[in-house]
């Protein structure tokens, strides 16, 4: 899948009349070419401002972290500011820095500190495991039910194509637990437990052995740091620091869970079958990324704190381009969506969250509406609608 080269010409002839999610083959190719051109233009422009931005964010994150760790020494009145600073530190570390650096967005800088092969983040999931499941599996097979393991994370029913069973009555509860223990869930996600339960994989042996070893090691380090050493260093305030660190981790868990769930699960986001994405062209891959993602609208703070995953559509089109470029790219992507009659799924956080929540509840019961993006197609676009 995601063949970057064109399929044989015979196939093209038969495919020209056939529409794929509302667009003809030629239209999809044209769209792909436009997105490629945008991509090249931005890559050619990467430079000092991007590097400076990243260093500035890292500097801010380190400062919040140092401040957070230090404020725990201030009994009672220091606690809340300490938790707040540490929460911000962890959110910045995981989203605008970690997620994006580990995508290789800053590999071009040649700085080992920001190289996707070297970086690790302040959360339970070891970088190496996560990069495989996320950069490769999720970003290649986005929203392909049965291939993208981020559709329901192996524990939720987030798509009507997932066969219902009584376990899914607990969908809202499972989602709540996943949110609360999100960093643990993300780390264990790479063990592919649904494959284990299907009997195709060993839980801790075989191909899971090195994955599990890395998880244990990383969890050990994180637990030692946040729940033993830093609390111990504050002496008599041990329990207060321990609780503060736990709350900071919880705040980060809730925030990242919500941002991520708004990326692919609001109403109107399409899902795909394995069959229809076989022999996919580059244009079709682009189209799938557009139809399979949703954005969150908001101010600058919203974008920074979400690691610009508030621009999930742009992120999925250009996962390796520095995320700070997504807002400017979004203007052009949105314009393309207009022209091709494609939906551009965006909304404020509360609206997207409510939509996700409704879906979690609805899909805890059998059935559920097909996930089909409301594509109008370029034919439906008139000069009037473009002008509007």
């Amino acid at each position, binding site marked *: 899948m995601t063949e*970057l*080269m064109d399929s044989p010409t015979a196939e093209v002839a038969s495919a020209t009349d056939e529409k794929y999610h509302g667009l003809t083959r030629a239209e999809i190719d044209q769209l792909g070419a436009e997105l490629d051109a945008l991509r090249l233009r931005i890559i050619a422009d990467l*430079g*000092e401002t*991007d*590097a*400076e931005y990243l260093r500035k964010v*890292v*500097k801010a994150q*380190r*400062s919040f972290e*140092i401040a957070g760790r230090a404020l725990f020494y201030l009994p009672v009145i220091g606690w809340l500011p300490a938790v707040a600073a540490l929460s911000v530190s962890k959110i910045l570390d995981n989203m605008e820095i970690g997620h994006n650096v580990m995508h290789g967005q800053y*590999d*071009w*800088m*040649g*700085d080992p*500190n920001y190289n996707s*092969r070297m970086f*690790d*983040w*302040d959360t339970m999931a070891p970088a190496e495991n996560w990069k495989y499941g996320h950069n490769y599996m999720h970003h290649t097979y986005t929203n392909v039910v049965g291939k993208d393991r981020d559709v329901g994370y192996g524990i939720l029913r987030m798509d009507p194509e997932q066969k219902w069973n009584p376990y899914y009555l607990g969908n809202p509860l499972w989602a709540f637990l996943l949110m609360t223990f999100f960093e643990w869930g993300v780390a264990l996600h790479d063990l592919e437990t649904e494959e284990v339960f299907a009997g195709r994989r060993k839980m801790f042996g075989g191909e899971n052995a090195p994955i599990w070893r890395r998880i244990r090691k*990383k969890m050990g*380090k*994180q637990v*030692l*740091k946040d729940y033993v*050493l*830093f609390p111990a*260093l504050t002496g008599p305030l041990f329990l207060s620091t321990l609780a503060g660190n736990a709350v900071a981790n919880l705040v980060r868990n809730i925030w990242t869970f919500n941002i991520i769930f708004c990326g692919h699960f609001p109403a109107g986001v399409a899902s795909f079958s394995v069959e229809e994405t076989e022999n996919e062209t580059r244009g079709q891959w682009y189209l799938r990324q557009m139809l399979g993602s949703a954005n969150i609208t908001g101010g600058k703070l919203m974008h920074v704190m979400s690691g610009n995953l508030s621009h999930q559509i742009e992120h999925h089109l250009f996962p390796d381009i520095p995320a700070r470029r997504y807002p400017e790219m979004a203007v052009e992507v949105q314009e393309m969506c207009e022209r091709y009659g494609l939906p551009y799924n965006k909304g404020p956080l509360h609206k997207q969250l409510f939509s996700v929540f409704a879906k979690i509840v609805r899909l805890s019961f059998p059935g559920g509406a097909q996930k089909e993006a409301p594509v109008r197609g370029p034919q439906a676009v008139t000069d009037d609608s473009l002008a509007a």
Partner: protein
Amino acid sequence: MSALISEPAAVPTRPRRSRAGGGPLGMVLRSRLVTALASPHGVDSYLERFNPMWAAHDVRARIVSVHRETEGDAPVATLTLQPTSTWRGHRAGQHVLVGVEMPGSAKRFTRAFSISSAASGRGEQFTLTIRAHDEGQVSSYLVRSAQPGQILHLSQAQGEFTLVESPATPTISRLLFITGGSGITPAMSMVRTLLRDGYDGHAGRKVTFLHFARSAEDQIFADELAEIAAADNGVDVHLRHGDQVFSEFELRRLVPDYKETDTWLCGPPGLVELVKAAYGDSTRLRMEFFKPAVARAAQPGEEVEGDISFTRSGKTVAASGASLLEQAEELGLKPEFGCRMGICFSCTRTKTAGTVRNILTGEESALPDEEVRICVTAAAGDCHIDL
């Protein structure tokens, strides 16, 4: 001196971590407790916030001074560096990887340069003597634009092209250095070390220094070499300029039993080929190339058959035995690269399928989805590179 390559390839792939030392503060900063607290980013990423010269593991240096050695089209400059206390020192003849953030692009480029000063200890200053090559943007930048105060990123010293014998335990064996152009730097480090540490040539061990430069104006360290030649120290200096190329006849006249003499050779490929031919299968010759000028062919007697597919760009080329990087560039592709000698990992790419050979080690590998450094990897049959 530009990119260096040791033979046999014994270059450590990663700088090893500093051990205890550098004072009690260093010991605390490198302790398991501090490492655990600073996980996963490492203590250096916090220290750096306060002062770029504070480090527990990383090695950085501040440029103390820049001294122009020669002018002309390809000028040479000597940079004096004050390293962080994590610098473990160097043995004469070693080189160091230097990472420079190039202004305008924000990109860090990493290149190897040999150290020209006498052997250094932990945290001690040392010098790099660099020629500004036209095609070398890093060397050009360091020679022409680097300013005192600027911070460079370093590796620990590396390389096995070193002076083995210590001047404290002299033997009667003679030493011979044959160098060309900026290849003089590692040999200069060795001679400076010998003279600094009390070598006076009176223990019966003579040193012969034979150097080739393009012209008298292009001669690096001219004054110092003249002083060394004039002093009563047992060091013979022979400088050859312009058209005077290396000849075995002349070498035999200077050092009749050169094949039985420990020899250090460093210079451009033309000189290296001539000297290698003169030494035949003598094991006394140690050498360090700079800039492997030509693509190295596959192992002698082996024909490479197969196609290289650069899958991302959709281009294909018949394998020639040259490095994947060079073959990609012949097709007009512009893959990222750094040292072009297999030590900085800048050009690492995924080989998704097929068999490749490591040019440095001759090792063949057919593992799928393997990260390879394309500058030192050649196809050994059909292969697919994610490029």
